């Protein structure tokens, strides 16, 4: 099982949840965060998004935050997928799935993981609007 992935293609939530479930019968709560492309951001209408990533380092960083989460929280398994390239409005961008015995640990780990991903993983978002293209560069 590849626990972290960066890919152009869309992903299936159902399949990723099945993967998490198949790792242990001790799982009682699965919390997922799915980030999707909004049509509006800070007053600008968005037509589509383009993601660029630093391939080697981004995968390493995803592995690193996954392992930190497994150490820090009482959880059983974590899967992370981030898409790259062009992403249309309403499409999936990122998926984090956390399986744990108890829901509180799954919620804490999932919240921590997406915050951390947005801080340390070298992936960049460009918003394509009617007025032009803008790299999003504010700090998390």
């Amino acid at each position, binding site marked *: 099982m590849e626990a972290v992935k960066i890919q152009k293609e869309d992903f299936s939530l159902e399949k990723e949840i099945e993967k998490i479930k198949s790792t242990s019968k001790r799982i009682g709560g699965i919390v997922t965060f799915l980030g999707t492309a909004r049509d509006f951001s800070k007053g600008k209408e968005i037509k589509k998004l383009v993601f*660029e990533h*630093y391939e080697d380092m981004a995968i390493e960083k995803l592995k690193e935050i996954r392992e930190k989460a497994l150490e820090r929280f009482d959880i059983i398994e974590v899967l992370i997928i981030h898409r790259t390239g062009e992403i249309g409005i309403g499409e999936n961008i990122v998926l984090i799935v956390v399986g744990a015995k108890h829901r509180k640990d799954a919620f804490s780990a999932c919240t921590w993981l997406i915050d951390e991903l*947005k801080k340390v993983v070298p*992936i*960049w978002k*460009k918003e394509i609007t009617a007025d032009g293209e803008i790299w999003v*560069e504010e700090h998390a």
Partner: protein
Amino acid sequence: MVSVKFFAGLRERVGTSEIKLDISDVTLEELIGILDEKTPGIKELIESGATIALNRSVAKLTDVVKDKDVVAIFPPVSGG
């Protein structure tokens, strides 16, 4: 040979995704000085908030770059 990669908005402002430099045993600070001589203005771009990674780990300006190392310079990340 040291490879210097640029990403996202910084890549567009620098105008290239990679510069190869035939250097070794210099600090990242010295490397930026060398880049700025070749492409004036890069130093300012980097100092206005870029992250510098050396072999895929975030690095300090005093870290030393050796032959075959990979340096990456990029703006604040915005994934997720």
